[in-house]
């Protein structure tokens, strides 16, 4: 609900929604020039957790770079490793066995659900409801335990290797994944009854920060931010990669463009990921998880290559410029939240600070992924 503001220049004061603030989920600072509760203009200041992954990319060989990707976005780490591994396999021409592809798809989708659940809990807590966070984390705990059993760590899995996986999954993982799906559907119903139907929640998010298709295109927004404004763009469908063409799932798109639409998109995405996991578990072939002669030293031919992948937060792209040596010449990481967050400054003009922070919550930010 943006109201035209008529401000006298000396009337405004600058409020630092500073690096340490409960609503920014990380070290992000928004310098807001405020007139009372209305934001006159907002300037996002990032870089507080910038670790220069791209320089590390130029100093380390390809196999040594596995762990950097999961440190970029710790909530949906597998999606990022998937992009990195797909790129190098495409460039170096490494064959990936069918079973490894399926396990990758299943674990990426599980990780996507875990990331969406964490977002759901944090978003409702941003709006003031504390209990849904605990329910969401409780469901997410099941996923983390499942993934910890097979990969060895809870968040920063370096589980994928060029050509396959670090180690294979066992029957207990398959059985716990199968048993997880109905339980997750039951709690999804609970969330819809507890939060989505709640009138306070709907009144809070209806017509909050409406993004037009044009703004999304100008800023290059992706995932729920673009799909919430009616743009049917999902890298798994637009540029099919790995084993996704075998799964039939649909991409939830809501035309309204307000925070409620972005919320609905992500909740529907959890349902779609459950469908993918179900089909993945049904079609899981046996066989090896690493090619017979997996090359130890990776030396991709010189040239300029690009690979885009759909992660929980949007279309993550890696550009690799290799000069034929063991170490990449230049590795550019295109992080989706970087573009999603960029449109915050323009949209937050004229909004109340409460609506602006609700809008920031609906963008699903992970700050280390913005700063890289």
């Amino acid at each position, binding site marked *: 609900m943006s109201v035209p503001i008529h401000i006298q220049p000396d009337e405004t004061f600058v409020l630092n929604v500073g690096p340490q603030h409960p609503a920014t989920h990380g070290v992000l600072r928004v310098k807001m020039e405020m007139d009372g509760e209305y934001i006159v203009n907002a300037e996002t200041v990032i870089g507080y957790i910038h670790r220069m992954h791209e320089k590390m990319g130029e100093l380390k060989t390809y196999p040594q770079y596995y*762990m950097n990707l999961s440190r970029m976005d710790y909530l949906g780490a597998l999606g990022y490793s998937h992009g990195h591994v797909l790129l190098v396999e495409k460039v170096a021409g490494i064959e990936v066995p069918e079973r490894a592809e399926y396990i990758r798809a299943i674990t990426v989708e599980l990780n996507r659900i875990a990331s969406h659940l964490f977002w759901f809990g944090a978003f409702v807590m941003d709006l003031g409801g504390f209990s849904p966070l605990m329910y969401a984390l409780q469901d997410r705990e099941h996923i983390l335990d499942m993934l910890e059993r097979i990969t060895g760590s809870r968040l920063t899995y370096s589980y994928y290797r060029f050509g396959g996986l670090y180690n294979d999954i066992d029957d207990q993982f398959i059985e716990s994944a199968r048993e997880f799906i109905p339980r997750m559907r039951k709690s999804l119903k609970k969330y819809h009854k507890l939060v989505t139907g709640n009138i306070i929640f709907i009144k809070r998010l209806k017509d909050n920060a409406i993004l037009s298709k044009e703004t999304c295109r100008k800023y290059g927004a992706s995932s729920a931010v673009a799909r919430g404004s009616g743009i049917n763009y999902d890298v798994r469908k637009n540029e099919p990669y790995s084993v996704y063409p075998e799964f039939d799932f649909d991409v939830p798109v809501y035309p309204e463009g307000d925070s409620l639409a972005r919320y609905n998109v992500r909740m529907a995405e959890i349902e779609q990921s459950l469908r993918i996991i179900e089909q993945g578990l049904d079609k899981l072939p046996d066989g090896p998880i690493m090619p017979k002669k997996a090359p130890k030293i990776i030396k991709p031919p010189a040239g300029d290559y690009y690979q885009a992948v759909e992660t929980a937060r949007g279309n993550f792209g890696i550009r690799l410029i290799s000069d034929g040596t063991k170490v990449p010449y230049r590795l550019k990481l295109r992080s989706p939240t970087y573009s999603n967050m960029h449109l915050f400054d323009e949209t937050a003009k004229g909004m109340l600070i409460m609506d602006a922070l609700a809008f920031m919550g609906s963008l699903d930010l992970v700050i280390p992924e913005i700063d890289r």
Partner: protein
Amino acid sequence: MVTYFSEIFSGLWSLIIGLSITFREFFSPTVTVHYPYEQVVMPERFRGHIQLKGDEEGNPKCVVCMMCQRACPSGCITVAGKKKEGEKKKTLSKYTLDFTKCSLCGSCVESCNFDALEFSKEYKLASTRKEDFIMDLMQRLEEQNK
């Protein structure tokens, strides 16, 4: 006028549904692990800090081939070996792991062809001094064997 009232009643009804859910949650059992009193069991593939594997008589299987030192992205392993006279293979003299820099990616365990390294199940590693994390794995192996 009708929508005005229907909106109020549907709003109240959604609030009551919300309350009913938390009411049911109130009476369902707690799911948290009370940490200091109940310990958490780490799964078998859990990646704690790496440790040396001893053969039957307890001395490390490591043959000082330096593969792990080269494979580590952050350079936290330093290995030193010396050749005892009369034996052709080098024996391990010093194996330190700088756990402050280690990011548990597992390249070292993967690159070791002599199965001399494994992940420990250690997760209670809080300490106030940095030096506690420069671990001498040989000494840990001896303690383990005792």
